[in-house]
């Protein structure tokens, strides 16, 4: 079969503009052939080149003395956690593949991010996921939701990584466009950082992992398009299937190999497979690379060079080995029974040269593909709908009529309800490090000796004790806020993540973000992107959580419209001592309950109800200006809770987010879960009658930022409040722990909820919807 002729139509089909094509011709000094066209197309897709977002991403803070590998340098960032140890982490999306085939799409998303982490030389130790779907009343949505969760479970459980946390939201805007973002964190010693550079002229290039098939052909380009019925049709037959068992073997082999010092560079074959890994490693090292496709293991007969170069078959790695050390490499791959092949060598030409059946099928300057990708400053325009949103006033909704029912509805609303239906399907305890499992504000994982990659057999460090470390992490984004006010929403995503860390006793180390947006050619959608990134960047700066990397997923839209702008933020922090690890549920009868922060933000006309869950669930409205996020004030609250935790007085801490104070307190009453079917329910009585400057619905369900509910022994209550005030944070004793009900005195009413009833709705509503 001969290659098709390069026509303008074919160029268009490859998502290259006429100008981009002209640029390719200019780089080559001739017209590209079919394989080269495919290579330009994937490398210059948004997914690989960030051509629409690079100027925007420049706003992120990316530096700190702790950062060992920074954003954009390698597959994932690396941060120092002391004692010669470091962590590598990153988040990545698999939205489009999951829309087409939820199980495999999500599974391979997990596989991809795990590979990014061990490619850095780190041993992956835990995972998180951030998911968004339409409303569960639709059978199609339920199919996507259950498939995605099962896919994540399948891959993570089999690989043997604990999935320790995440978030799930349901909103109609995601109906045809689920968002599936997967995060992975790994651990390594400083000297174990591996690089994705093809160094050393003449060094052999190895391929390891399963044979290449026609899987996910041009997946990167596909991820850079709007979803249409046609595109999901096209994808069929090319769906990538994940093999977590294979990935586990590849990971063990790679870590064993990296300990030998025989490797000069390594990169996984993710999006754009062999293409991306070869040209990027060469470009990073300023070298060239030559490969021979006949040597690439192939699953299907008669694959063309185009297909082999663009295949996205999973679990494959490219390894550049020191010349003369080939035998060692082969021994390790054979030990793990892995398919491998020596496919090429590093050259000094600066070119990526690909041969197939004795013919050169591609010959392109490597760095031009990566560094000379097009760059666009897209037009942005404030969306018209924001005018409507800002015009919303609080008197457009009636005052509260049935607060008792309203709290129950909020607790059983799937976006607020317990996500146990999800995380009970994930092994969240494997590796003996899960100190705080899913169900509290942030997950906490213990790092110990066997969390680290192996050392060379003769290393003197083999006998050194590894000090235990505790890493906390959380992934957050309230996209409704971002939709209603992109800038404030961006700040809040970061603030919430940092607040979750603070509540668990951790100080931020860094963050990674996943920007899920619509088509960037639409100026209103681009405005959302630009403004929310500005907010995220400011937040990360204030909380000392520089961005070490991330992922952009655009074109999350279908003919019905774009998803809400969703800049998901995953933040990672360090907990100094085991005693500081704090969970969200109340502990003992009689303890005092304290609110840190203001009950209502006096500056907010909407009293925290703009964009709130209450507005959505009770009044069916998604409007209003969301609560403001004063980053400095927020930071003071985090510092205060940490100081209080360090003093040893705090028994529980839980941040207020969706559903406001009432939901936060209710969750502290019902979220303890020692064992199957055995929740630990503990009551609370609040007296909020002193607050008379706000509506009752705002007092209960307003979502003012910068608030934390904590509990302390009664004898310490006054001391703790005074301490908080000294730290510049308002603090109020609002009630006490105990009993079999939650009671709240507020707005002249005595409200009461039976714990078992609240628990049932909150714990079971997702399971019931999925029956």
């Amino acid at each position: 079969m001969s290659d098709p002729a390069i026509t303008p139509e074919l160029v268009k089909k490859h998502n290259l503009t006429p100008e981009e094509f002209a640029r390719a011709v200019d780089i080559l000094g001739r017209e590209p052939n079919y394989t080269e066209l495919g290579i330009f197309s994937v490398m210059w897709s948004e997914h690989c080149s960030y051509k629409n977002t690079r100027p925007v991403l420049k706003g992120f803070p990316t530096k700190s003395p702790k950062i060992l590998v920074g954003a954009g340098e390698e597959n994932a960032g690396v941060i120092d956690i002391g004692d010669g140890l470091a962590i590598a982490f990153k988040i990545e999306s698999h939205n489009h593949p999951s829309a087409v085939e939820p199980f495999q799409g999500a599974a391979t998303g997990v596989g991809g991010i795990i590979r990014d982490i061990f490619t850095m030389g780190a041993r992956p130790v835990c995972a998180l996921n951030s998911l968004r779907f339409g409303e569960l009343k639709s059978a199609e949505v339920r199919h996507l939701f259950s498939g995605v969760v099962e896919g994540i479970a399948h891959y993570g459980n089999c690989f043997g990584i604990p999935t320790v946390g995440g978030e799930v939201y349901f909103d109609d805007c995601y109906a045809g466009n689920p968002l599936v973002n997967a995060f992975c964190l790994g651990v390594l010693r400083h000297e174990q950082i591996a690089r994705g550079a093809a160094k050393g002229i003449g060094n052999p290039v190895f391929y390891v992992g399963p044979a290449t098939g026609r899987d996910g052909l041009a997946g990167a380009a596909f991820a850079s398009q709007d979803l249409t019925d046609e595109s999901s049709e096209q994808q069929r037959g090319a769906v990538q299937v994940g093999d977590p068992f294979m990935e586990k073997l590849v990971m063990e082999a790679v870590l064993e190999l990296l300990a030998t010092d025989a490797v000069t560079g390594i990169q996984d074959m993710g999006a754009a497979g062999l293409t991306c890994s070869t040209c990027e490693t060469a470009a990073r090292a300023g070298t060239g690379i030559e490969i021979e496709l006949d040597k690439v293991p192939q699953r299907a007969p008669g694959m063309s060079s185009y297909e082999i170069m663009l295949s996205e078959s999973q679990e494959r790695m490219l390894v550049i080995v020191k010349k003369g050390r080939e035998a060692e490499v082969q021994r390790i791959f054979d030990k793990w029974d892995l398919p491998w092949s020596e496919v090429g060598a590093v050259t000094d030409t600066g070119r990526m040269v690909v041969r197939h059946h004795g013919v050169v099928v591609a010959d392109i300057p490597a760095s031009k593909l990566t560094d000379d990708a097009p760059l666009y400053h897209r037009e942005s325009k404030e969306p018209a709908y924001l005018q409507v949103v800002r015009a919303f006033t609080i008197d457009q909704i009636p005052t509260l009529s049935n607060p008792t029912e309203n709290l129950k509805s909020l607790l059983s609303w799937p976006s607020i309800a317990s996500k146990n239906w999800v995380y009970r399907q994930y092994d969240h305890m494997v590796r003996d490090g899960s100190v705080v499992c899913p169900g509290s504000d942030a997950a906490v994982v213990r790092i110990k000796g066997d969390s680290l990659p192996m050392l060379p057999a003769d290393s003197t460090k083999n006998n050194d004790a590894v000090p235990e470390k505790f890493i906390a992490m959380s992934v957050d984004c309230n996209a409704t806020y971002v939709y209603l006010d992109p800038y404030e929403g961006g700040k809040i995503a970061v603030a919430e993540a940092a607040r979750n860390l603070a509540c668990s006793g951790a100080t931020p180390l860094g963050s990674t973000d996943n920007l899920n947006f619509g088509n960037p050619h639409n100026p209103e959608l681009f405005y959302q992107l630009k403004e929310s990134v500005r907010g995220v960047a400011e937040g990360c700066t204030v909380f000392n959580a520089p961005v070490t990397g991330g992922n952009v997923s655009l074109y999350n839209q279908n003919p019905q419209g774009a998803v809400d702008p969703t800049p998901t933020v995953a933040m990672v922090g360090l907990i100094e001592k085991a005693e500081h690890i704090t969970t969200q549920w109340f502990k003992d009868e009689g303890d005092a309950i304290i609110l840190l922060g203001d009950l209502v933000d006096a500056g907010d006309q909407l009293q925290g109800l703009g964009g709130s869950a209450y507005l959505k669930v009770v009044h069916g409205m998604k409007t209003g200006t969301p609560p403001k996020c004063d980053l400095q004030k927020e930071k003071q609250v985090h510092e205060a809770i940490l100081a209080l935790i360090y003093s040893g007085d705090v028994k529980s801490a839980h941040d207020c987010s969706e559903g406001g104070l009432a939901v936060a307190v209710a969750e502290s009453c019902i979220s303890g879960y020692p064992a199957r079917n055995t929740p630990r329910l503990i009551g609370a009585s609040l007296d909020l009658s002193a607050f008379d400057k706000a509506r009752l619905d705002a007092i209960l369900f307003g979502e003012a930022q910068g608030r934390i509910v904590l509990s302390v022994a009664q004898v310490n209550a006054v001391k703790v409040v005074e301490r908080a005030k000294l730290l510049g944070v308002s603090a109020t004793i609002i009630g006490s722990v105990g009993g079999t009900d939650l009671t709240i005195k507020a707005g002249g009413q005595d409200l009461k909820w039976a714990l078992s009833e609240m628990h049932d709705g909150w714990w079971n509503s997702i399971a019931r919807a999925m029956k």
Partner: protein
Amino acid sequence: MNFAVLQFPGSNCDQDCVHVLKNVLGQSAKLVWHKDTSLGEVDAVLVPGGFSYGDYLRTGSIARFSPVMQAVQQFAANGGHVLGICNGFQILCEAGLLPGALVRNRSLQFRCEQVYLKTVTKNSPFTNQVADGKLMRVPIAHGEGCYFADEETLAKMNANGQVLWQYCDVNGNLTDDANPNGSLQNIAGVCNEAKNVAGLMPHPERASEAILGGDDGKAIFESLIHALQNKGAAKAA
């Protein structure tokens, strides 16, 4: 004591077992590769959890044919102590070292959560140190942990005291609700007739340190260590 912890391709609780044996219980433990044909000088064998060979086809079905399992068969036949956890339990059943089989959870979903376990008899090398009447809180994490054996086998096992652990509620009742996977008779773990080989679906190695939420599971390892010490003492005498 010297423990061998088997390592199959796809094992993923192997390090956890070594960690608990060494760092929590102060024993010596080494990993033994699936291609090895000999176990070396060991007092007991642990077959850890994970997804050996991806658990493709059937859980544990491929692992049982690996060279090291031939050595384990021999070791067990000579009276050596073998404990299988989760995937290890599945492997031992497939290998015929334990009666019955483990099939897909009734819910068809993977389940990871803490459960309560009732110890049926203290009269085994795997349960002798469990405090009287103590319910252990230990996590499970499996998709195929529903225990099955035909009626005749079950009757025999019950008569011989081979059912070691059952899923129960917080009050020790063997309710259907407390059964996380549909196991017959709420069975969580069993031993062979000679009582030197046992397996269970829950993960005691994840319940051996207070920082991980509790250390009830330690009693199982302590029982085994106690039995091995007695055995050593008997030999010496």
